């Protein structure tokens, strides 16, 4: 019975992902032929993202693959560890229960309003993914609290506590939130899943203010169905499909033939490749999911150390945000009301600087650990290019689809996924449709879900911080206590690092930018320079543990514990931190080109 249900769950998830590829493709075709698209195809694809995300999270919970801090492994083995892990699961199950109930409230209220997604499908049906997802997660966390019945009873008790808190909100309302937060933090330290830490903190804080925990879920929903999000699962799928076959071997051959004579050549190429991919896909860690799986084995085979390769790819996921046409730059320019092209020009040198610093670290690694070098041979260079022609054409496919006016970013991502599928199954036959396809799809869904459930509740917590006007209070404090420009810039760096750590990038821009722009002006900082400092700091924030999205993505993609990824990324983070300081204190890097162009 259980295996059949699991297979069914996997099947539904894989099917939803397949639908997500097909729908935008059909939309392109129909639009070309009939002039207008499929009614509601956009909103449907967005809601598919929500379903994939929360089915994926439920599958991750089933397989015990919800992401958690690795600090739980510091608890001594045996009885202490069993108790600690049962406790962590119980707290997480409790928080999931509250989140599930919040989702039920959201669905109910939506149903009363009677809104529709499109083509007569009610919105509340689309939202059902949330209560179903969180209920499954709560049950599975309780079940997996341990193998003993004592542990499972503790897990079930967690659910019951959750129900009690929902039933009697007076237990939390108008009382200090810290005791609850302490429990959540202790659970976090001994290994509770990260989504339960952030989501738990969110619901506890809201409930202590007398606000419904559904607020967190409203934010989760609106993030999950945002119009640009579907590009992420689609690019991820393309990357997963490519990584399954021998694409990395073929690419490695190209790198060897062309750059093998330079020490650290492959590492340099990886850094540059990731930079471009990030700039074009609109930022965040899509890069790690899309190309990380292909590049990681290539780096290892080339003789780079495991830790170095892991750190390099984790970091590379956020390089490129300063280079056009990165979406965060556009958004910043709009919110701060400065010309977009000024920000694009201003970002060029700082962007190149950060990539160059990481690349230089790669060269150093290549020289120190004497990775194998290969002399340049024209014949092999040409032959390697020819062998990898299909993979190499892929970026061209993306760029062409996006800039020919044929497709939107989401549709371009769908085209990319289809293209990857075609080269792997039809051309190279690396992947068997029957044997591998469902497995690859489910693996991909699990990763998307594991990440989306964290980001989804993180925006809920962010919303709480916005609601109590924390960013404004911090800014006021800075204004009251800081007088010199140098000290202001330093405080700004620290402040933005915290922002990048706690907040999702787009939320951070919308909320924080209007606050710091007048401050920057008061201290005589060029508005474009301030923008570049802002985005550069967020890049760094992505690498910071707990909510640093790149850390999670890398942990999932390379199947390593969060702490190991953090350790591997540490030297790279230090390099980027130096880079960010240089960008901050050498304004010429940003404004130099700008004055030249004027």
């Amino acid at each position, binding site marked *: 019975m259980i295996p059949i249900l699991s297979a069914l769950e996997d099947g539904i998830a894989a099917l939803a992902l397949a639908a997500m590829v097909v729908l935008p493709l059909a939309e392109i075709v129909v639009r070309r032929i009939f002039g207008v698209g499929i009614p509601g195809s956009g909103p449907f694809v967005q809601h598919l993202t929500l379903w994939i995300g929360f089915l994926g999270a439920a599958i991750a919970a089933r397989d015990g693959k919800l992401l958690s801090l690795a600090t739980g492994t510091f608890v001594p083995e045996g009885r202490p560890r069993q108790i600690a892990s049962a406790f962590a699961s119980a707290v997480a199950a409790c928080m999931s229960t509250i989140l599930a109930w919040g989702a039920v409230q959201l669905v109910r209220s*939506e149903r009363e309003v009677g809104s529709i997604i499109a083509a007569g499908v009610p919105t509340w049906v689309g939202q059902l993914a949330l209560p179903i997802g969180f209920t499954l997660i709560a*049950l599975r966390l309780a079940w997996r609290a341990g193998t003993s019945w004592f542990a499972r009873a503790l897990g079930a008790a967690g659910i019951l506590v959750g129900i009690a808190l929902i039933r009697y909100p007076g237990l939390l309302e108008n009382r200090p939130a810290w005791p609850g937060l302490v429990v959540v933090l202790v659970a976090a330290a001994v290994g509770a899943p990260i989504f339960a830490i952030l989501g738990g903190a969110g619901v506890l804080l809201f409930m202590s203010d007398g606000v419904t925990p559904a*607020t967190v879920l*409203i*934010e989760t929903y*609106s993030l999950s169905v945002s119009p*640009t999000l579907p590009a992420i699962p689609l690019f991820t799928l393309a990357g997963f499909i490519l990584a399954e076959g021998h694409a990395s071997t073929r690419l490695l051959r190209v790198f060897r033939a062309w750059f093998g004579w330079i020490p650290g050549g492959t590492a340099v190429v990886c850094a540059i490749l990731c930079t471009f991919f990030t700039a074009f896909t609109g930022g965040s860690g899509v890069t790690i999911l899309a190309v990380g799986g292909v590049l990681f084995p290539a780096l290892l085979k080339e003789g780079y150390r495991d830790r170095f390769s892991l750190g390099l790819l984790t970091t590379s996921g956020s390089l490129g945000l300063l280079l056009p046409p990165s979406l965060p730059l556009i958004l910043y320019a709009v919110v701060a009301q400065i010309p977009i092209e000024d920000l694009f020009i201003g970002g060029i040198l700082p962007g190149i600087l950060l990539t160059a610093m990481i690349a230089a670290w790669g060269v150093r690694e290549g020289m120190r650990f004497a990775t194998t070098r290969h002399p340049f041979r024209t014949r092999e260079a040409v032959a390697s290019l020819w062998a990898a022609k299909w993979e190499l054409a892929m970026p061209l496919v993306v760029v062409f689809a996006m800039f*020919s006016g044929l497709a939107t970013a989401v549709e371009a991502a769908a085209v990319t996924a289809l293209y990857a599928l075609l080269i792997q199954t039809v051309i190279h036959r690396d992947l068997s449709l029957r044997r591998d396809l469902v497995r690859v799809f489910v693996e991909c869904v699990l990763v998307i879900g594991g990440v989306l459930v964290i980001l989804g509740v993180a925006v809920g917590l962010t919303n709480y911080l916005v609601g109590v006007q924390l960013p404004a209070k911090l800014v006021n404090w800075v204004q009251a206590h800081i007088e010199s420009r140098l000290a202001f810039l330093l405080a700004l760096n620290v402040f933005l690092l915290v922002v990048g750590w706690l907040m999702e990038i787009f939320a951070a821009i919308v*909320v924080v930018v209007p606050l710091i722009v007048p401050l920057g002006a008061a201290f005589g900082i060029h508005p474009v320079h301030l923008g570049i400092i802002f985005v550069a700091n967020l890049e760094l924030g992505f690498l910071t543990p707990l909510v640093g999205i790149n850390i999670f993505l890398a942990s999932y993609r390379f199947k390593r514990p969060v702490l190991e990824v953090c350790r591997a990324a540490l030297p790279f983070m230090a390099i980027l931190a130096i880079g960010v300081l240089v960008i901050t204190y050498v304004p010429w890097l940003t404004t130099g080109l700008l004055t030249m162009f004027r």
Partner: protein
Amino acid sequence: MRHVSRSILALAVAALVVVSADVPSAQTVNIKLASVVPEGSIWSNSLRQMSTEVSKETGGRVTLTVFAGGSQGDESTVLRKMRLDALQAAALTGVGLGTIDGAFNVFDVPFFFDSYDELNAVTAALTPTLAKRLDAKGFVLVNWGNGGWTQIFTKKPVNTVNELKKAKLWTSAGNDRMVQWFKSNGFEPRAMAMTDIMTGLTTGMVEAVPTTPIAALGYQWYKQTPNMLDIGLAPVVGATIVTKKAWNAIAAEDRQKILASAAAVQKQLEDNVPRTEATAIAEMQRRGLVVTKASGPEWRKEVDGLAATMRGEMVPKDMFDLALKARDAYRKQHPAAQAAPAAK
């Protein structure tokens, strides 16, 4: 044992679904108001002014905290929060108002209004009906907010209706009925998110964007669309609303004070927004924008035909007729004012 555990879990699931919460009351009423109007704009300034006035006038019995710039999410998100009492008020644009009740789409009927004066007269006539419809959905109408007037910004110059129909026209993603309306009237709508307009214009996915001059300047879209068709497509009408629950918690005298402050703000916007709009157009013209005035019988004829197709489809019939009656009454009183569709 196994059986017992399963039962506990089943019980837990059942309990998840049936429980509900009760809500407390407090003496001071704290109202959180959200809006998507840009921070630092004429609208967010007026909201903050209202916030200061409200706490002063009511002696702190009512506080109004403003979250502008979309920091509480887009309008559907804000409405969801209002329904669950996480927010108590919002200054919405036509998009959000239309989601609450289709009657508000009456302001979006293309080429329906000729001037701000006509719009204000019709709005005043419709206010009691619209307020009643809002009340039925659990919201109280506090004031109207003038948001400017939508013009059409195009990559290539557009002089005739047919030229406009050939251009790929941006429409907001998520409003499928509007897309279908454009389609059935021979336009080429392209539905996408507002954040995609810039890339859409750069890549040629869209060639024409209907938007207000203030927004075109603010979002810098005008740099990709050097032509503005001065056609007065439709006004952008916003409104401030409060949930009935929060409104009822406020003492009657304080409500009057809030309404007075809101009315003053409404009047200010009525006076200042057209002026800001003219400044925005002048500023863009200085930077190379070419403004073409759409006039002549061809537009007029086409325009009345298009407006009529919205009746019953986008706007409830009774609402449409009510608006039409009010507009025609106004036009009868002011025959000189209706020369051609224009932005003023």
